[in-house]
């Protein structure tokens, strides 16, 4: 089959800028073939190359004694003691989910699970952070329904518990929803599999599902802004099959245990191209592929299509040749394809053969190492204007404004569609703060949370970046876990705009500072740029996924307040209402600065809480909605009333950082207050769990009434 001639239009359609094309000409010294152009576009798009973000990502804090492997592999690897490691990452599937919500979200889950098990880990927990447009936007309900169904359909069938996440609504996501999927797995620390190939003449093996035309050009699509031609992009979305993925998991883990694997890489974005280049590049080797051997689902596929297909549930592996028969037997057992499709070669060459033709012959190392890297112009986000006067509001009316918003309402509609207990290790299910699962067969447990407050990041990227990290850290602390490490999923608009790039740079700075101050390294991550429609960007949304360790399940802070228990506030504040949930939901305002994050105070208060867990029945971090919302949620979950002494709006709804609400038995309060005083930590009784009303100062409503609002608002808005 003759390939199309390379024209300016064809180059542009591949998302390559004219100067990028010139760079290709310089590297290969000739006009590329059509397949080669496709390979370059796949490797050099934003999604795969991080060309706009690399410079800044390097500044993040990524090391620590607990880190076995930081960013750069499929996922980060963190030591949890006893020879075990937790392996995790968060990745976006925003663009595909907007185009086809069910499959887009499902394959997002599938992709992140593969990132984890390609390293030899069995996935043990998943989360997802979702941002949608305003509930009243005509697409929102459809997107919510499809995305949630898609996540559930994949994770539930695969058999990984979904234990946490976030769902928010804001008009800035009307044209670009965000679907950030997190997965964590467990492996023996000395049995982690990496992507670097080694040895010349080693067979390159294709594993898993067959290759079809789905997703051709997907990574390029994910790096473009949307406009009104979006419907035409539907065929670039892949289709997921969790049944195949589950078998691929089991087969890969058996294969790894057999000792046959030299290196392995999942086929994610830009499928065969990216995975082969990655293994060769990391190992300093070339790769030769014979495409006729690739298992194909459709007839007459071209080299271009096979190299760029994003068909799901596929892996590429470099195999120990003497183990071929054992390896193939494992894949036969699971009824999965196993095909030798190439070999490692000594020279720096990516050689693609199809039939009798050379379809691509490129210097392999240049595909990733010579990818363009930009120092994009950026301008710092100007300081936010001071907060205007906040009108008086009755605290119960204010609380109702929050509870009736789908962003703050009870989310059972969402998480009941996810199996949160498969694997029988879940000891804290979704709904309140971090999810917790046991480390199977040990006394330990791992806690998972995902956090960011995009309004803060927009108003003040540096403080907003810090706050996202601090909130994730607090959520881990609040369940009794020692924070271990984090992953970042950085969702922003078009980086070619200096103000958007400024948001990105600021957020990275804040995230970096917070991670350093809290010894909370970023070990993996993903960047999603160009989240814009018709020139309008999303709220900057750097989602932080985080993992903490409990040395014993007995360390879990997961009780429920009972009649007579005392509500205790750790931390202090001035009642910061700028960019608060109260302003947004009660007054439709998003003004003022983000709250300042004092990282030393964060650390001190968190460490105090962990050191005094024996006095604590339940704990919650204070974030959006401040004390009032956290207090309501804690009481509501326990089915009890609460009487807070505070009556002032800023004290109740302010979003000052480094704070926690605790529930303590009356007899434990004295000891806790004494310990706090000794540690110099602000700590005060603020109310009592009692009766059937929720009371703030002189304003009260029945829990039954408030609970009714809280538990029906989500479905009423978008269900």
């Amino acid at each position: 089959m003759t390939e199309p001639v390379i024209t300016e239009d064809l180059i542009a359609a591949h998302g390559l800028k004219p100067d990028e094309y010139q760079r290709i000409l310089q590297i290969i010294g000739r006009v590329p073939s059509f397949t080669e152009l496709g390979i370059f576009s796949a490797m050099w798009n934003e999604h795969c190359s991080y060309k706009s973000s690399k410079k800044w990502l390097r500044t993040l804090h990524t090391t620590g004694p607990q880190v076995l492997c930081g960013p750069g592999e499929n996922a980060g690897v963190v030591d949890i003691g006893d020879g075990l490691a937790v392996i995790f990452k968060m990745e976006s599937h925003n663009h595909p989910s907007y185009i086809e919500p069910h499959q887009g979200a499902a394959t997002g889950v599938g992709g992140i699970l593969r990132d984890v098990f390609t390293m030899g880990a069995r996935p043990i927990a998943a989360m997802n952070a979702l941002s949608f447009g305003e509930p009243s936007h005509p697409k929102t309900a459809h997107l919510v329904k499809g995305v949630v169904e898609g996540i559930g359909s994949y994770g539930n069938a695969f058999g990984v518990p979904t234990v946490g996440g976030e769902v928010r609504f804001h008009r800035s996501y009307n044209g670009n929803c965000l679907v950030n999927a997190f997965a964590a797995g467990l492996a023996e620390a000395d049995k982690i599999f990496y992507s670097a190939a080694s040895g010349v003449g080693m067979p390159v093996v294709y594993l898993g599902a067959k290759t079809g035309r789905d997703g051709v050009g997907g990574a390029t699509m994910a790096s473009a802004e949307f406009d009104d031609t979006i419907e035409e992009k539907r065929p670039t979305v892949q289709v997921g099959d969790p049944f195949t993925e589950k078998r691929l998991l089991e087969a890969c883990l058996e294969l790894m245990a057999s000792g046959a694997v030299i290196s392995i890489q999942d086929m994610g974005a830009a499928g065969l191209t990216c995975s082969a280049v990655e293994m060769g590049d990391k190992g300093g080797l070339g790769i030769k592929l014979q495409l006729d051997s690739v298992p194909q689902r459709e007839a007459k596929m071209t080299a271009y299509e096979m190299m760029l297909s994003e068909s799901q549930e596929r892996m590429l592996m470099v195999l120990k040749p003497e183990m071929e028969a054992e390896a193939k037997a494992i894949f036969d057992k699971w009824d999965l394809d196993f095909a030798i499709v190439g070999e490692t070669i000594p020279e720096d060459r990516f050689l693609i053969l199809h039939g009798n033709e050379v379809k691509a012959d490129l210097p392999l190392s240049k595909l990733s190492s010579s990818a363009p890297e930009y120092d994009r112009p950026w301008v710092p986000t100007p300081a936010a204007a001071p907060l205007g006067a906040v009108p008086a509001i009755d605290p119960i009316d204010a609380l109702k404004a929050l509870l009736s918003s789908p962003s703050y309402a009870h989310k059972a509609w969402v998480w009941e569609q996810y199996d949160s207990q498969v694997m029988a290790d879940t000891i804290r299910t979704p709904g309140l703060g971090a999810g917790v699962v046991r480390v199977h067969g040990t006394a330990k447990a791992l806690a998972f949370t995902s956090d960011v407050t995009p309004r803060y990041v927009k108003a003040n990227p540096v403080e907003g970046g810090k706050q996202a990290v601090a909130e994730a850290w607090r959520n881990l602390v609040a369940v009794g876990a020692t924070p271990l490490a984090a992953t970042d999923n950085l969702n922003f608009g078009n980086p070619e705009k200096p103000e958007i790039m400024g948001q990105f740079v600021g957020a990275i700075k804040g995230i970096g500072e917070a991670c350093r101050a809290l010894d909370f390294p970023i070990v993996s991550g993903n960047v999603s740029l160009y989240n814009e429609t018709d020139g309008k960007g999303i709220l900057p949304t750097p989602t932080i996924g985080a993992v903490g360790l409990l040395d014993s399940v007995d360390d879990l802070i997961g009780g429920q307040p009972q009649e007579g228990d005392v509500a205790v506030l750790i931390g202090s504040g001035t009642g910061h209402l700028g960019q608060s949930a109260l302003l947004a939901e009660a007054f439709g305002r998003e003004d003022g600065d983000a709250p300042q994050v004092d990282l030393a105070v964060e650390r001190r208060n968190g460490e105090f809480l962990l050191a005094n867990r024996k006095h604590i029945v339940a704990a919650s971090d204070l974030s959006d909605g401040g004390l009032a919302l956290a207090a309501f949620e804690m009481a509501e979950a326990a089915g009890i009333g609460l009487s807070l002494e505070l009556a002032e709006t800023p004290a109740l709804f302010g979003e000052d950082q480094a704070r926690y609400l605790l529930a303590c038995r009356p007899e434990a309060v004295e000891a806790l207050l004494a310990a706090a005083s000794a540690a110099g930590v602000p700590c005060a009784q603020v109310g009592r769990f009692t009766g059937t009303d929720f009371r703030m100062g002189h304003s009260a409503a029945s829990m039954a009434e408030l609970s009714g609002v809280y538990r029906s608002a989500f479905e009423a808005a978008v269900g």
Partner: protein
Amino acid sequence: MKAAVITFPGSNCDRDLAEAFAKAGAEVTRVWHKETELPKGTDIVGIPGGFSFGDYLRCGAIAARSPVGQAVAAHAKKGGYVLGICNGFQVLTEMGLLPGVLMRNAGLKFVCRTVGLTVATRESAYTAGWQTGSVIRVPVAHHDGNYTADAATLQRLKAEDRIAFTYVDNPNGAMADIAGILSDNRRVLGMMPHPERVVDAAQGGTDGSVLFRSVVGALAEA
């Protein structure tokens, strides 16, 4: 007392079920779906939850016709015990070892929630550890748990006291609130809720362990 837990491709509660049996004192063997025979001396077969064969065609339909399916049917026919949970219940109805079918949930959504169950009869090796009418808490997690049968079948299940568990607050539209049923010899139990997920206090409940201890104990004595 020997338990055999089947793994189909797509099963994802097989480990959990095997461990629940083991915790109750059973000697457990894991059996791959391509096997044509059960291990010698198998007292009870566990068919786990999950999405056998991806739930393609119909939930449980392909698993019911797999090689090991024949062996399980033969085991049941000669009076052996079989416990099918969630997808396992669907497989048992597809095999014809239990009557009725599990249709899509009335709400058309997957539902994962810890629900109240009434022990509708203690007259079985599985439920003898409770009193009839006891209310226990066990999680459900399924998309197709809406038990459906014709009027005569329902009438017969009631008349023969073969409804093992009913939902206190029906999560899926099941007829007569049915969460689990017994075969006519009371040795095959299919249930949608997951007792294997509540066998340890850390999991938030231990009601499930009563079932496993009860059936393992009964078979160990036999």
